[in-house]
């Protein structure tokens, strides 16, 4: 167990972390989270490592009654990344939101495995994962929502959408619902496509260059995930990183914020006193 986070009843926390300790050996880093009654956690994870590095990340979450969880994981860069989420909704009235964004290129590979267990009635889960895959990047999305026989009045939504920019980029997307209760609202969906050519022409007809139109569209796509970042300063900062990433300015180690292969001092505009 790498770290454990237990929120007492009625506690509320916001945590921001960087998965920047690039593992060269794929040892999983496990975070176990327990949210007691009516507690609330917002967890923001940023992943930005070089193309040779791997990340293996596991989140094991147990939520008790009326607890609220929001996780947003933003993957900017990394050679081989696998995130695994397991959420057990064990108390009525619990709400969970899991959002993921991956913007990858070259031969990068990102996998997201998600299992949400609605073990009791009256819980809500919402998962949205979005990705832009360029060049020869590849990804896997595997989402599984389980609704137990007694878990009536469950609301469960799951969505994965991807933009594939080249013929060589690929994604394997498998959303899956397993429902044993009969009074539930559940949906899942997946979509994979190219940039909307109608929208591209519309923008270019207004004088916007092809390159800028692409970035605007990709940014709008990505913002559907980043807009869930509740911390305003972090939101602004991540949005800025998304824009730079989409312009191709974040991919190399020179502009990377991390010290993985070139140890050096760096400044990051996040006010840690507020965390």
């Amino acid at each position, binding site marked *: 167990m790498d770290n454990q986070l237990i929120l007492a009843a009625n506690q509320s926390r916001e945590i921001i972390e960087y998965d920047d300790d690039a593992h060269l050996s794929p040892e999983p880093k496990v975070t176990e989270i327990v949210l007691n009654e009516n507690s609330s956690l917002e967890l923001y994870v940023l992943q930005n490592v070089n193309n040779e590095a791997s990340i293996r990340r596991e989140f094991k979450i147990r939520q008790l009654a009326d607890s609220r969880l929001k996780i947003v994981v933003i993957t900017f860069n990394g050679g081989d990344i696998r995130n695994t989420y397991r959420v057990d909704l064990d108390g009525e009235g619990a709400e969970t939101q899991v959002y993921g964004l991956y913007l990858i290129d070259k031969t990068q590979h990102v996998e997201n495995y998600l299992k949400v267990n609605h073990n009791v009635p009256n819980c809500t889960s919402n998962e949205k994962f979005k990705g832009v895959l360029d060049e020869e990047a590849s990804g896997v999305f595997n989402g599984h929502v389980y609704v137990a026989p007694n878990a009536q009045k469950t609301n469960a939504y799951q969505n994965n959408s991807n933009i594939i920019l080249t013929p060589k980029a690929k994604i394997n997307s498998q959303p899956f619902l397993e429902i044993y209760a009969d009074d539930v609202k559940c949906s899942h969906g997946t979509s994979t496509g190219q940039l*909307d*050519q*109608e*929208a591209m*022409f*519309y*923008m*270019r*007809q*207004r*004088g*916007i*260059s*092809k390159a*800028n*139109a692409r970035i*605007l*569209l990709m*940014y*709008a*796509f990505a*913002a*559907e995930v980043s807009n869930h970042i509740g911390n305003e300063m972090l939101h602004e900062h991540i949005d800025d990183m998304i824009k730079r990433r989409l312009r191709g300015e974040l991919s190399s180690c020179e502009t990377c914020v991390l010290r993985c292969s070139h140890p050096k001092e760096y400044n990051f505009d996040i006010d840690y006193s507020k965390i």
Partner: protein
Amino acid sequence: MLLNIKNLHVSIGGKEILKGLNLGVNEGEIHAIMGPNGTGKSTLAAAITGREGYEITEGEIWYKGKNIVGMSPEDRANEGIFLSFQYPVEIPGVSIQNFMRTAVNSKREYQGLPPMSTIDFMKMMKEKQAMVEITEKLQNRFVNVGYSGGEKKKNEIFQMAMLEPNLAILDETDSGLDIDALRIVAHGVNQLHNSENAFVVITHYQRLLDYIVPDFVHVMYDGRIVKTGGKTLALELEEKGYEWIKEL
């Protein structure tokens, strides 16, 4: 001459749609292009604006003294060509403000001008919105998302007012409009019209031409302009339909 199209042949996926079209438009003029469905009216708009997939196999499109065949859509736009889309595209996540600001500043960059200040831009937005009676705050609305047909068309005319084109092509701007929206759209066009710009109004019905009065009416059939006349030609078409055109 602002626009001079000579013997234009355009194919889509190997199928010839325009078959030798000629059209000349001077500054200050309003031209209406009418004709039955499937005769190439929208293809003409696509060819002038440089849409991909419309292959120009023969002929020339002269605009401001340059043959623009091969020029990118954005360069044509920044040279002052504007298309009011028949089906304006929804762009979720891109606010109208951000979209228009990017467009206005792209044109300024093309002209070698510095970006417009936020204050000036906001002022211009407000002014142009008023022109087409858009009263709501557009700052946080996404481009065309959740708009009714009429709102989308008003929004097209708003964008046209923001970009102040020299040549505006209105592709079936009247389709799906009720009479109030039609008046607003026409009023916007009439306010923007001056001696230095020109409008090409593609329409199926004469109705719009009651409000936007054309100097010339052209009738298209089978990829060509088969008849040209004054505004009375539109009335004649309204009365007699398009059947007789096919005999020409």
